[in-house]
């Protein structure tokens, strides 16, 4: 086809060419495309060499030259986009700077300006299509208005890796009446779906349709007043929806609940309170018990039955007298020195651990302590302890020595007391000269607000001395506390 220079080309090109173009051979079309023969040959061969948009166009059903518009990446992180609305219809002219459509990205809804001038030939995704991948063909633009008709049934042949979800528009009223468990219409056509959460809830409860309601929102959206006014005017009732009862998972493990007795629940409460509010500190010491055992056997031979526990009580009582800083109670942010030494002894009964008190243990002899302890233990096991017999006390001893396998343990302080001595079981060991000796460990658990580590140490040292050498209980042993440190200065 010979190219006619000058103005008359406009007549031919606009009127006749589109009709005869499909019939033209590819070469002629190329020549027409590359314009003037005056253009350097390089342009045409380069054009033919490189795979171009035009080449691809003609390989399929010989459509006229057109520009394929893929979904643009309007932000660097965008992967999918939703076409909210089209600003141009098929056949409209698009000029530089015109908006083609509004695209909702992961960040915001932005306008998409036309990449080319011309006429919008075909829209491939209608407004409301969600989650279109970047690069997917969304529309076709042609330079000549008459080419628009050729794209009436154009379909994008390239398959996408991801299938686009079908548009869910508000034009499906049945969906709003489905039970709560099933899917809700989330998005649809533009602005008919722009509604706040309160409005959405009303829609859900009353099964409303956006088209029926008068909108007064700034973006033609339904406001809460609109919805409420509609409900009031139609006197609607909320839709009853069937809610499936929540199914409890079947518990297949076998177990048995043991209800707490009153006393146990009180013990539990007090233990918890003690452990949580009192800052416990622990100091341990090993006490050699050979001499103590010898003495005990001796007394037994003399028909005086005393136990290690009784010695412990006496030792602790003397210790508390020697180191009165351990015989304190914490109240009003101060340690209050107690006047008497009343030692509680932990007794295990069926109903729980109870601590009957040996009042004035420092003034009782071993025998006295022994008798008292036995009497209290009997009463405790028979549940006949009077409240004043177990409420009070300034110090507690918890002895698990009879369960020989326990080497040492820590205990929880009984408030309002400030210390508890946890006594472990006896162990037989060899010393450096390979002589057998026996010892047991005691742990003083004390309230570190009321008692200092130094006092606790001195108490334990005193106790250890008293018990490893029981004769010293008759004589007040010389303690470090009696040493006048000021002499060192």
């Amino acid at each position, binding site marked *: 086809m010979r190219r006619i220079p000058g103005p008359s080309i406009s007549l031919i090109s606009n009127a006749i060419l589109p009709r005869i173009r499909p019939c033209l051979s590819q070469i002629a079309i190329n020549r027409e495309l590359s314009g003037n023969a005056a253009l350097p040959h390089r342009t045409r061969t380069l054009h033919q060499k490189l*795979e171009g948009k035009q080449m691809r166009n003609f390989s399929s059903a010989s459509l006229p030259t057109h520009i394929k518009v893929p979904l643009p990446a*309007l932000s660097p992180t965008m992967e999918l986009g939703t076409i909210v609305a089209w600003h141009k219809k098929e056949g409209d002219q698009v000029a530089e700077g015109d908006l083609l459509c509004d695209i909702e990205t992961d960040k915001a809804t932005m306008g998409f300006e036309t990449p080319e001038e011309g006429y919008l030939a075909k829209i491939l995704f209608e407004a409301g299509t969600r989650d279109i991948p970047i690069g997917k063909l969304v529309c076709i633009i042609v330079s000549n208005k008459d080419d628009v008709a050729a794209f009436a049934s154009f379909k994008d042949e390239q398959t996408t890796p991801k299938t686009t979800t079908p548009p869910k528009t508000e034009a499906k009223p049945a969906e709003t009446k489905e039970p709560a468990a099933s899917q809700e219409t989330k998005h649809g056509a533009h602005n008919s779906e722009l509604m706040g959460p309160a409005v959405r809830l009303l829609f859900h409860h009353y099964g409303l349709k956006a088209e029926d309601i008068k909108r007064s929102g700034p973006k033609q959206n339904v406001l809460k007043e609109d919805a409420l006014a509609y409900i009031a005017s139609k006197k609607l009732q909320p839709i009853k929806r069937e809610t499936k009862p929540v199914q409890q998972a079947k518990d297949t493990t076998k177990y048995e609940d043991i209800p707490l007795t009153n006393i146990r629940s009180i013990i539990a409460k007090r233990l918890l309170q003690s452990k949580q509010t009192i800052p416990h500190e622990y100091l341990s010491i090993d006490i050699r018990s050979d001499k103590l055992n010898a003495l005990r056997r001796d007394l037994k031979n003399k028909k005086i039955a005393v136990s290690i526990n009784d010695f412990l009580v006496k030792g602790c009582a003397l210790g508390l007298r020697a180191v009165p800083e351990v015989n304190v109670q914490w109240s009003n942010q101060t340690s209050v020195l107690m006047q008497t030494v009343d030692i509680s002894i932990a007794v295990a009964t069926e109903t729980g651990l109870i601590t009957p008190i040996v009042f004035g243990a420092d003034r009782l002899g071993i025998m006295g302590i022994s008798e008292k302890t036995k009497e209290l233990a009997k009463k405790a096991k028979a549940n006949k302890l009077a409240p004043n017999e177990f409420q009070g006390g300034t110090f507690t001893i918890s002895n698990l020595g009879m369960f020989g396998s326990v080497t040492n343990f820590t205990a929880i302080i009984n408030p309002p007391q400030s210390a508890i001595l946890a006594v472990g079981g006896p162990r037989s060991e060899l010393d450096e000269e390979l002589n057998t000796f026996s010892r047991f460990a005691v742990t003083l658990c004390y309230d570190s607000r009321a008692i200092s580590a130094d006092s606790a140490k001195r108490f334990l040292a005193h106790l250890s001395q008293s018990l490893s050498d029981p004769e010293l209980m008759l004589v007040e042993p010389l303690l470090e506390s009696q040493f006048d440190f000021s002499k060192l200065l």
Partner: protein
Amino acid sequence: MLSVLSKGFKPAANSTVAAATTVTSTRLASTNDVNFTVQSYKLHKLDNGPKTSVTLNRTDALDFYRKMQVIRRMESAAGNLYKEKKIRGFCHLYSGQEACAVGMKAAMTEGDAVITAYRCHGWTYLLGSTTTQILAELTGRIAGNVYGKGGSMHMYEKNFYGGNGIVGAQQPLGAGVAFAMKYRNQKNVCLTLYGDGAANQGQLFEATNMAKLWGLPVIFICENNGFGMGTPIERASASTDYYTRGDYVPGIWVDGMDILAVREALRWSKEYCDAGKGPLMLEMATYRYHGHSMSDPGTSYRTRDEIQNVRKTRDPITGFKDRVVTSGLVTEDELKEIDKDVRKEVEEAVKIATTDGVLPPEALYADIYANTATQEIRGATIDETVKQPFKTTTEVLKSIGRL
């Protein structure tokens, strides 16, 4: 023949061509120079300034039109490539400001230098690069202006000093280039371009002081497009008369959407500087259609209507087109031909830019120093030390057969 053509000629729907038949007749009568009047300039500390009556010949008209169209198309192509994620990172487009660049280039002579910031694709084209080189540079391919190594911020040509990333960094550099010119007794100027956002940078005033003190042939040109990123000039500058900001340096305000005004202003300014009268500060009142960069839609701080309005009333290309067609210098069809040609050129450039290869990793170690022995480059660990395999990018290109 003439009558047949005249009758057959139908002006396009949106053209402002008035008397179609008379146009064709005067074209054949071929007046080479046509007179135009441009908007008057505002002067600061100058008694006389550029003329408001300018002449334009046919060759120049076609040339200017083509150049402006190339820049416009190339920038749209860059924008589209960015949206297809073929260009990443920064991309600042010049659409709407073409008249400034083309007008200024028209007044430049051999040896004049230009330095600008990152909105430089148009300038790189005007000063010697092809559209392929520019678009390939943006996509990072070997065909690029600097082989894809730098993108917008790193484009160079002979007497074109970039392509600068830091805002306002080019202002003192431009004064320095002018200093070199004066030192060498060259009758040249250095056009130092910056935006309204960079006009408040301190180094501009330092550079202006030195330029005035030593009488350097530098023309500081503020391309005022009304917005510093998203900040309108009224919210950024205490004085929005950027041509007066030089204080003791004379200034001229120019309508930057009119290419003929720009050309005349630069021609006058070059004469002024060549005569050794010292620096000048120009302000081009222009407008950009796109956002500050591709990550800015450009509509959050101004309305789309405003942009459309400027496109309709003040667009440099359509304004120029209307003038030259009405005056009879060129015909609309010639311009349409140019449009088609430009479109093809840009499309080919896009193809190469999207299909070409990338430099091999060894290019990282090239072009470090100009005149040393082969360097040892330390890697992330001591074992990864590399001795420079190639010293210059030319060697790299030779090794892959691209040179």
